Each structure stands twice: as C-alpha cells, then as structure tokens.
C-alpha cells in the first residue's frame, strides 16, 4: 500500500506540473460553472417581496378593490392568474402562495355585521413560515374594504335595507328581537345619512377611520380563511416539478462543470499513462520490485485522489458562492462513485493511442460527446425525450444526476443507489476490462 501511495504521489506531482492539464482540470470547469451559474435564472428572484398569485373569481367592485389593496402592499408582489394556473404556479415554486377569491366574496366582504366572507389560501409547503404573514396581509386588505364601505356609504345602504327586510320577514326571530334589530338598522341608515352629510361638507380625516378599522380587526372575523392543498405536485417527473427544486444557478452549473473537471482528470491521467510509456519510465517501474497490479493500482489511486481534490475544491467554491447541498453524506457518496466510474474508464481510454497527442485527442473527443449527451453542456431535463433516453447509456448523465441528487434534487439514500450503483458498476467493469487489456498489451 505504501508503494502504491508513493506511485500516486509521484503522479500527482507530475500532473500538477502540467500547466495545460491543470487548466482543463480546474480552471476551465470553474470558469464554466461561474459563467453558466451566473447567467442561469433559477430560484427566488432578487427582490424580497413575497410573490403571490391571485385569482379573482368574483370580479365584483369589492373584489377588485381587495386585489388593488393587496397590490398596494409593498411586501407582496401580486400576479393575477386563472385559478388552475395560479395553483400550478405555486406547485412549481414560481409563486410562494395563492389567494383565491370565491364568487360570493363581494357580497359580504367588509361588512362587519355579516358573516365573514370566504377566501381560499394556498401556500408553498417549503414556505410555511410565511403563512402568518400572508394571512395578515389578506386581513389588512379586507380591513381596507371595511374602511371603503364606510367611505362609500351608498354601497352600504342597499345592504342595510336588505338586512332590515330579511329580519322583518324572518319569523324564526322573536318579535321583540326583530323590533330591536330593525331599529338598529334604521339608526345605522341614519348614521350613514349623517356620514354622507359630513362628507359632503368637509373631508373627514381618513386616519380616524383607518384606526377604527384596525381596531375592529382584532375583534371581528374579517374573513373565513380556508387553506387549499398545493403541496403535491401533479407529476413529480415533469420538468417544472424538477426545476422547482433548484434554488440558484450554482445548483445546476456546478454539477455540470464538475463533470468537465472529472473529464479533465481522466484525459490528464490517460495521457500520463501513455507518457510513462513514451518516456520509457514504465520500463523502470516494471523492473522495480512492484507487481503489475500495484503499478495499475498506483495510477488508479492517483487519478482517484486527483478527482477528489478537484471536486472538493469546486464544491468548496460553490459553497462559498452560496450553493447548499441538501445532503452532504450523499454528495460524498456521489463524488466517490463518480471517481470509481471515471478511474475505471480512464484505463481503457489510455489504450486508445500510442502517443500522448493521439490519446489526449481521442479521450477529449469521446469525453465531449459523453458530456453532450450526459448533460455537461445542456442539462438533461431540457433535452428532447429521445436524447434523454439515450443519455441513460452515458455515465456522465449518471454522474451529473447523482451530484444533483445530493445537491438540489433532495434524493434519499435509496434514490441515490441507482445512479451511484450504475457509476460503480461501470467503473468496476471498465477497470477489469482495462487491466486485462493492459496486461495483454504488455505480454
């Protein structure tokens, strides 16, 4: 084991002195991650406002007024959408919550002696903390309606008239109560008359009214809030559902760039193996008291260590930029199995030519194609279905997929087994084939 490490350290030293190799292994992928990460637009937008979708199914003056009150509130960004779109948009994560105004809303909203108007709220499950804030916002907007009703008594009068008639017609109410109530309604009508008179002569300070409305909020139920379920996405496999988990451009750009780093290492080490032959140093190693499997293991371990170093560096950088892997343990599992896979692939790839140029060129060619289909250039989710199917045969896809699983897809350990298992299997098989081919070539 000690000898294998000595061999590996020598290889790491050699690779670290190869400036161009280092560029492709580290600098290029980092630049790529930074570039794509900064142009990709995912996750919450820059403004701190709570993005809310509103669906007004009432479309009465009162409900319009309510929507306007919401829009005037600087804490929320309001987009009006049809009902299904509004709910979907929350499911996709585009909006933090949805407010649905049912058709009867305008009849009773803001009328404090009537039943509280129904209203439906839905909230992104990951933003439960903001539920209270949203509800408060709704109440404030309805509170504004109460104030409006008093400011515009004309709209109240028919309501009072209706109520009075209702009370008088309702036989279930005992007569004395009926008398009391209709007297109250009459005096309310009188109150409104006098408000109108005051308004016509002088402008009342709206501040007083506002205070009153605010005070009323504590004691009265201004709205009857029911929550609707927006937590379950209709199709968890849909592109929208998948992308809703992405929190920032770094989430996508780093796994993508990390596979390029992996391929830089593979190309670097495949070339190093050939270089060992063209320089003749391989002869020296063959004469040393090391077995051929130790020599191979030395290369494998060196390549693996190099991969781990490069990937760790990139992850640290990403974390510095704000990327937060959902599961660190799974991320370790992911990069370890990616390492096994590509160390395994490196061996047969190193046999594709006799000169460094030939191997380096061929390996980069193959890697570029693998990257193209595996999501190293365009994320697999954005690809047409038949290419997505093809990409299942591409280890790069599984490497990206497993890293994404740990970083933002929120995989469980069981979900992680598929990509990591495939990577390890591909690595092991090509390790065996590669060792066999190398020993055959040497014989």
């Amino acid at each position: 084991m000690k000898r294998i490490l000595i061999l590996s350290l020598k290889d790491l030293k050699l690779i670290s002195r190869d400036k161009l190799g280092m560029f492709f292994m580290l600098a290029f992928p980092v630049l790529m991650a930074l570039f794509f990460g900064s142009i990709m637009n995912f996750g919450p937008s820059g403004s701190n406002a709570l993005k809310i979708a509103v669906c007004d199914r009432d479309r009465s003056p009162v409900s319009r007024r309510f929507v306007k009150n919401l829009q005037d509130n600087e804490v929320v960004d309001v987009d009006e959408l049809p009902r299904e779109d509004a709910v979907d948009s929350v499911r996709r994560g585009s909006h933090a919550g949805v407010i649905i105004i049912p058709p009867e809303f305008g009849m009773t909203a803001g009328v404090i002696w009537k039943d509280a108007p129904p209203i439906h709220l839905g909230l992104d499950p990951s933003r439960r903390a903001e539920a209270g804030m949203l509800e408060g916002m709704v109440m404030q907007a309805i509170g504004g309606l109460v104030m409006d009703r008093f400011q515009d008594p004309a709209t109240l009068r028919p309501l009072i008239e209706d109520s009075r008639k209702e009370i008088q017609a309702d036989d279930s109410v005992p007569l004395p109560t009926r008398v009391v109530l209709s007297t109250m309604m009459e005096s309310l009508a009188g109150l409104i008359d006098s408000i109108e008179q005051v308004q016509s002569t002088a402008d009342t300070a709206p501040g007083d009214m506002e205070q009153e409305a605010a005070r009323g909020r504590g004691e009265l139920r201004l709205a009857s809030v029911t929550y609707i379920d927006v937590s379950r996405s209709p199709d968890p496999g849909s592109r929208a559902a998948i992308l809703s988990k992405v929190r920032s451009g770094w989430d996508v750009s780093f796994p993508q760039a990390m596979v390029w780093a992996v391929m830089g290492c593979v190309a670097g080490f495949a070339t190093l193996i050939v270089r060992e032959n063209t320089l003749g140093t391989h002869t020296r190693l063959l004469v040393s008291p090391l077995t051929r499997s130790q020599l191979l293991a030395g290369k494998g371990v060196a390549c693996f260590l190099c991969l781990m170093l490069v990937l760790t560096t990139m992850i640290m950088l990403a974390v510095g930029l704000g990327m937060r892997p959902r599961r660190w343990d799974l991320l370790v599992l992911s990069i370890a199995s990616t390492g096994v896979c590509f160390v395994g692939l490196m061996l047969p790839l190193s046999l594709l030519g006799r000169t460094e140029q030939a191997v380096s060129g061929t390996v980069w060619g193959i890697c570029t194609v693998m990257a193209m289909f595996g999501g190293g250039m365009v994320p697999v989710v954005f690809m047409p279905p038949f290419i997505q199917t093809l990409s299942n045969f591409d280890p790069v896809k599984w490497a990206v997929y497993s890293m994404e699983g740990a970083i933002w897809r929120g995989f469980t350990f069981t979900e992680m087994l598929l990509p990591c298992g495939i990577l390890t299997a591909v690595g092991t098989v090509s390790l065996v084939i590669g060792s066999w081919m190398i020993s055959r070539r040497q014989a």
Partner: protein
Amino acid sequence: MIKVQNICKTLGTTLAVNDVSFDVTAGEILGLLGPNGAGKTTTLNMLVGILQPDGGTVRINEGNPCDAGTRHYLGIAPQGLSLYEELTAQENLTFLGQLYGLSAGHLRDRVHEMLEFAALTDRRKHPVRTYSGGMKRRLNMAAALIHDPEVVVFDEPTVGVDPQSRNHIFDRIEELKKNGRTIVYTTHYMEEAQRLCDRVAVMDHGRILAMDTLGGLLTTYGGAAIVKGELEPDCQLAACPGVEADRSFRFSTNEPVREVVRLSESGVAFKALQINQPDLEAVFLSLTGRSLRDD
C-alpha cells in the same frame, strides 16, 4: 549469479532473440556486442523480467526476474532514457529509492552519492527536461544504481556522452566491479568492451556468435596480426617475408612480437615497423563478414 538458458523471443514477425544462453558469475562484467537490431535490448529485457521469453529460462540469483522479489537485486539503465522529465534529478532519484523501500536516512545518502556519480549535484533542483543529452544519460545510470543492486544492466549507457564524462563513468563502473557487482553491458564501442568487460558475447541476428574473454576472442577469431614497415637498405632483405622491391614489407603472423625479435636477431634491420594487433572489429568482421558499425 545470472543464468540464461536457450531464450527465444519473437517480436511481431521478427525473431529478435534466437536461442541465447550465457552465464555471468558474481563480480563479472559481460559485454554484449552487436550491431543495431542484433537483439541486445530484447535479451536484456528478458533478463530483467520486462519481457517473458517465448522459450528458455532466466535465473538471477536462482530466482525468476518476473518475481518482484528477485527484481530487488536488479538495476537497469535502459537504452531509451527513462526519467520523469517534469521532475528534478533529485526527485527522480528519491522516488525510485522510495519504491525500493530505502529508509529515509539511507535514501538521502544514496541520492547524494548518485548525484555525485552523475556529476549533477549542482543541477539537482532543475527539472530533467532542461538537461543536456549527456546529463540525462548520466542520470539514467545513476537511477539504475540508487538501491545499490547486485546485478546491474547497462544498455548502451554512454551514447552521446562526452569523452570526459565517459571516463568518469568508466571509473565508476570499475568501482562497482571492485565492489563485487555483476554487470551486463551492451555497446557498439570496442574500446568500452575492451576496457571494461571480462568477457564479451558477440551478437548478430538474435544469436550469440561467440563468447569468450577478450584475448580468447582475439586469438580465436581475430586472425593473425599484421606486421608492416620498411627495411634498412643494407640489411638481409631475403630473410624477411613479404618484402617488396621498394623494401616495404607486410606479413601476418599469430605471434608478431616473437617474429619481429627473431627477424631482428637474424640480421634484419627495420627502418619503420608497425604491428596491427587484431581487435573486436576484426573479430566481428570474421564472424559475420560485416563491419560492426556503419560509421
């Protein structure tokens, strides 16, 4: 120490080594002499276990060089330089020493000694790619000796080395011999074989044509020595063989000195005398009908 029996090797379609056998005893230097493509390198590769012979056996210290254990006793300076160009001389030597499991202190001493051996102490921190051809050659030899092996194989170690460094290298090799190391040495150069080797094997087309001590080879295959010169005008012309009308003479004999003395005693007076002893070139010529080197 080294026992090679009837080894054969076909590379591609060429029968590179054909039924080669030789023994080397401890402390001996065996030279392999042969033209390009004779099969010297292929033989050495089988000797150190890089190549597996198609037939025959190789034993080093009773062990098979294909076993990692046996290779502990072996050091090789391959014909093609085999050094890490991006590493410095010191790093190359240290890495190899570590592979052979030298302890840290011992390794430091050995690296120091080998840098001296290669006369690269002041360039030890420069990467090998910045060295001249001769410097690389010297380091290539030093790398073979880092673990002080009992059996050392040098494959044309002095190609491209200037005469001064070459003498330095020969002194070191003689020192190794004095310390009881067993050495196999291939070369195109007669002078080297004549100066260093106890025995010489002449190879061509994958076969060993002859193997003996230098003197043995010369007497068996070198043919007679050539004595030529010019006689004094007034001496016994008739007593000397091969005399021309202008008194110059040329004859061949197996015992040139004795013959010259005998002639002198019998009254022949030499104005000019030159004795051409047979050399390996002549040996090679007589064995193959070809000259060893084209130049």
